[in-house]
């Protein structure tokens, strides 16, 4: 067993233990109304997140999404501590309860690479985790858990019962949570819009499910102040949506693999029927990768740089410019680069797979581009020769003007006088 496989197997075993423990906590809770519903939710949510997370982690270890997904599953098991009859475990559960929602925000914002892209994003998620845990602490000092709930365990952190103060701190925490959800949703929607602009819809169902779930939780937090049966309904809706997230992810994974397989097949087919080959090679690769802004540049050993299909030099995009370049090699020799949208960076292996399928045609194109570069150089040198010829002709004309022509004019004038 390889080390990574061992870690994944260990995590799976830990998840089973935690799922059983959470299930026991829920079923034996003295202060939980719908024990059956929560037991099912616990099993479905925790297991599906850990399951899909570990699968994605195993299949694509370089992508962190699987790890973050697994993390959300574990957070979900931890959140069940709230239902414990033990006063300390139950108090700890008050801090772990909102963690899965912070984890979901993390997962949605970091998709598709699983890595948060900017400092701003890292701040948002750090604040989400802190708001879910540390910011709950002040309220705990004033929360009498047994008020109106005789079976609830006592709050060991209680200093003095103060419902108004407790409600005020809870309102602040909820307000921060709602604001964070709004900001995160805005970031995700901006990313989706940007990817759509170049025809790359990498986000798909998973992102929509994730954002919808976050918004549902936002509504839940906002409704806390009102309470009542409406809040309970929103709670069930939010958790119900939560269950769809890992399945949407799984669906996207399968769909993506199918789409990729068919894209590569279509590419190979398109290369076989190319009329204006240069354009259709770019178009075929662009279609296979789903990036309408894609461009190809070929390596020219002579110019020690990349050139386009017409033989002109191409500068590779700078990091942070929103464009990126993936080199395609054949037998360890640089062949070409695919210049594409930044969002494809996470799928460099796909770009290389598509580039590999087109390698032979790319090699042909590279040679043709190099030939065009030479023709251009030849044309430039010819134009230099023509320019030199022009200058020589002008010099002759000037000499003529200065010499013979003037004498002829003078002679004509003199002749006219003599007549």
């Amino acid at each position: 067993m390889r080390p990574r496989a061992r870690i994944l197997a260990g995590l799976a075993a830990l998840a089973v233990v935690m799922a059983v423990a959470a299930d026991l906590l829920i079923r034996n809770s003295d202060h939980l109304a719908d024990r059956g519903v929560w037991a099912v939710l616990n099993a479905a949510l925790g297991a599906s997140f850990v399951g899909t997370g570990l699968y994605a982690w195993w299949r694509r270890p370089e992508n962190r999404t699987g790890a973050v997904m697994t993390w959300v599953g574990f957070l979900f098991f931890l959140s069940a501590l709230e239902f414990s009859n033990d006063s300390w475990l139950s108090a700890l559960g008050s801090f772990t309860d909102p963690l899965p929602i912070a984890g979901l925000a993390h997962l949605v914002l970091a998709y598709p690479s699983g890595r948060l892209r900017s400092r701003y994003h890292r701040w948002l998620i750090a604040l989400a985790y802190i708001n879910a845990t540390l910011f709950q602490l002040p309220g705990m000092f004033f929360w009498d858990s047994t008020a109106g709930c005789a079976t609830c365990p006592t709050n060991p952190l209680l200093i003095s019962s103060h419902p108004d103060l407790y409600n005020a701190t809870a309102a602040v925490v909820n307000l921060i949570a709602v604001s964070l959800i709004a900001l995160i949703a805005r970031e995700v929607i901006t990313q989706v819009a940007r990817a759509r602009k170049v025809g790359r819809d990498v986000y798909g169902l998973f992102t929509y499910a994730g954002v919808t779930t976050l918004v549902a939780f936002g509504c839940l937090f906002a409704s806390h102040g009102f309470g009542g049966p409406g809040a309970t309904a929103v709670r069930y809706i939010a958790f119900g949506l939560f269950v769809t997230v890992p399945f949407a992810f799984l669906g996207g994974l399968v769909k993506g693999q199918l789409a990729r397989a068919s894209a590569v097949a279509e590419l190979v087919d398109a290369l076989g029927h190319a009329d204006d080959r240069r354009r259709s090679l770019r178009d075929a690769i662009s279609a296979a990768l789903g990036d309408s802004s894609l461009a190809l540049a070929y390596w020219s050993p002579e110019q020690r740089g990349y050139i386009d299909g017409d033989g002109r030099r191409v500068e590779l995009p700078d990091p942070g410019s929103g464009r990126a370049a993936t080199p395609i090699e054949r037998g360890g020799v640089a062949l070409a680069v695919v210049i594409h949208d930044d969002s494809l960076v996470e799928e460099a292996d796909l770009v290389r797979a598509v580039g590999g399928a087109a390698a032979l045609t790319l090699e042909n194109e590279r040679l043709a581009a190099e030939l065009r570069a030479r023709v251009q150089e030849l044309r430039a040198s010819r134009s230099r020769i023509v320019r030199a010829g022009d200058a020589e002709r002008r010099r002759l004309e000037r000499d003529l003007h200065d010499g013979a022509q003037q004498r002829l004019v003078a002679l004509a004038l003199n002749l006219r006088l003599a007549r």
Partner: protein
Amino acid sequence: MTVMIVDDHRSFRHAARRVLESAGFEIVGEAGDGEAALEAIPRLRPDIVLLDVQMPGIDGFEVAARLIERGDPPLIVMTSSRDGADFGALVERSGARGFIQKGDLSGPAIRAVLA
């Protein structure tokens, strides 16, 4: 009327002098390039300047432009061995009274241009 001939070819200046003198003009001076012409014209104050277009250094159009810029310019007649059509609207725009191709130079031609 007094005339000054500005041309970089001595053979043409001689021929032009003979043609114009025989037609009754008084030649008050000659210049071999634009610089010399600009220096001599205020001193000699000719009525007419026969000005070659193509000269080394400052060309005829530029000489005409500077004369007009100074104010109180003489009557300027541009000339060249080339056809006037080669210069298009440049002659008119330079402020000269007209253009005579070198081969057509004669007293009546000058009078016709100035009329």
